[in-house]
């Protein structure tokens, strides 16, 4: 089922959590809402669920499969909501938790006892918790609780699955495992899902499409590789992955940062304007000798090769720190010494001209 959200705003007192946000989520898609805390992502999710009402606006609408649901309560929207802190019913067993949504149905819609049992057992095996059905939430680990919460949300056969920071409270190892598991589960049941996270790695790994949010607005949306490699705004550039920031200026189709010029054909003016240039750590070559191509010198401060790649921290003459990631092969070939002066050759750069109020 597709979800269309149009012109949604939400204020809490003087704080604007969402500012005229519109978003379309396709049927069967897994979309991640990614942003720092306070960016409005959780509010958007809660509004889709119906746990929060958007501000009144003549064109505001929330549609599930082209059907307006904005006046429906959360119970009538057929959404499965997974809470950040699981929100499991602490006085019920795992089985009772998962059965809850079926047992509270009005008698005429309520499945028979045996059917409820079968369905709950099927769900528990889907989340690999069959043997824990008699346990209480307090007797489970964080990861297990999260899976119970997921099974409970799926029990009511929702048309949409909404997950609020589902792995936020878990440690790194468990997160990694659950992430992969969630992706597999989605491939299996193909339910339209929206996942809120502040962890870019999680969003980029799990989602079909990533919606980057900041300051109550959507900054950019697109496939993970798109938002990562073709950031449309400075915020997205900075928020996704590590990046080196240089302050310079643009003039006559070039961006200049301390002796280095980068092509920037969209600005042909004579008059210089301040600009910010971003370069990812893996988009550099390091050479000992200049080969005539555009480059700038920097001194090696620190190297660290404990990982899948080697990280070299350097310092420019102006005092700016530059981080460069090299493959271990390259790193070993270069055999850099700390304190050594080298040349950095940017392979790629993104230039942003700060908006100037006219």
């Amino acid at each position, binding site marked *: 089922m597709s979800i269309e959200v149009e012109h949604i705003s939400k204020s809490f007192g003087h704080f604007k959590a969402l500012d005229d946000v519109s978003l379309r989520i396709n049927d069967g898609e897994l979309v991640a809402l990614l942003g720092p805390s306070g960016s409005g992502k959780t509010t958007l999710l809660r509004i889709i669920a119906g*746990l929060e009402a958007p501000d009144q606006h003549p064109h505001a609408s929330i549609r599930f499969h082209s059907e307006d649901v904005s006046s429906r309560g959360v119970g009538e929207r057929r959404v499965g909501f997974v*809470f950040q802190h699981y*929100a499991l*019913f602490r006085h019920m067993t795992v089985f009772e938790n998962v059965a*809850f949504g079926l047992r*509270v149905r009005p008698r005429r819609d309520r499945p028979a006892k045996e059917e409820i049992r079968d369905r709950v057992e099927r769900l528990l095996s889907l989340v690999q918790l069959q043997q824990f059905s008699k346990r209480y939430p*307090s007797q489970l*680990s964080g990861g297990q609780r999260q899976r119970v919460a997921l099974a*409970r949300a799926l029990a*009511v056969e929702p048309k949409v699955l909404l997950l609020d920071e589902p792995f936020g409270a878990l440690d790194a190892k468990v997160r990694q495992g659950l992430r992969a598991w969630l992706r597999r589960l989605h491939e299996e049941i193909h339910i339209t899902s929206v996942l809120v996270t502040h962890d870019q790695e999680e969003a980029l790994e799990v989602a079909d499409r990533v919606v980057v949010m900041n300051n109550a607005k959507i900054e950019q949306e697109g496939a993970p590789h798109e938002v990562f490699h073709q950031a449309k705004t400075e915020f997205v550039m900075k928020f996704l992955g590590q990046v080196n920031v240089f302050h310079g200026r643009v003039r006559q189709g070039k961006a200049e940062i301390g002796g280095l010029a980068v092509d920037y054909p969209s600005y042909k003016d004579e008059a210089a304007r301040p600009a910010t240039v971003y370069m990812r750590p893996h988009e550099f070559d390091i050479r000992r000798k200049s080969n005539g191509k555009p480059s700038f010198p920097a001194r090696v401060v620190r190297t660290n090769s404990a990982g899948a790649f080697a990280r070299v921290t350097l310092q420019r003459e102006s005092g700016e720190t530059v981080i460069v990631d090299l493959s271990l092969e390259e790193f070993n070939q270069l055999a850099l010494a700390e304190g050594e002066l080298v040349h950095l050759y940017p392979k790629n750069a993104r230039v942003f001209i700060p908006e100037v109020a006219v």
Partner: protein
Amino acid sequence: MELALTTTGFEASNWAHARPRLKAATEEKPWVRLACITVTVLFLALLLFVPLASVFAEAFREGVRVYFASFSDRYAIAAIRLTLLAAAISVPLNTAFGLTAAWAITKFQFRGKSLLITLIDLPFAVSPIVSGLIYVLVFGMQGWVGAWLSEHNIQVIFAVPGIVLATVFVTFPFVARELIPLMQEQGTEEEEAATSLGASGWQTFMKVTLPNVKWALLYGVILANARAMGEFGAVAVVSGHLRGKTNTMPLHVETLYNEYNFVAASAVASLLALLGLVTLAIKSAVEWKVRRDYEAAAVSESS
């Protein structure tokens, strides 16, 4: 360690013998501990246990037969009945009120919330005599609605309704006060989860909210009941001490005492004291159970 000591000239073996017993930084000298405990026990014995025991001693002074005869007295029976009635009305009423108030305060956002919390505490803050007086001023013959009530032949003051009202007033904070902090801590996520799974408001309340607070609720009810049965001040003002009509157990004890009927007074007092002891026992049991549940949860939480 030993090596370091010998090289610096210490005799390691002697030093090891002289080593004092290891103790925690907060540990006191034994005589301090003993003194503290003795003072506390003596104080409790003198001021609490001896008087309590003497009530029972006095009650049984003229034998078991006289003791039980004190309860077969028609006025004593009326007093016990009235006390039970006042408790039977005020406790359920305040349970319902306490749940509603706690629900409203913890699950909704509204203006004047902190004022409401303060108001709930009012009966704890004012003297019970004042609470009684308020009702006399409102419902008495000279009061705001007293004249209208007497025209319609309704008597509140110096009658059972007044006693019940005063009891309700002094006991209404107990349940709410127990529930509010707990429900605040538990938050609204479980309720939101229940609603998102299609539960109605009533189902959410009965299946999620209530089971989560059941022990705190029971605790509040026990305390409210103890106060309802034991209340003297507020009830004394509105009662008028009409024997057999508006005397509750505490008031009956006073009446008997004023008539120098010490055995009967002590007998009824011993019954009240017994009620108090039973209440304390139940309260301790509930506390123990809650703590055990909490620890069990905490243990599995940390694993």
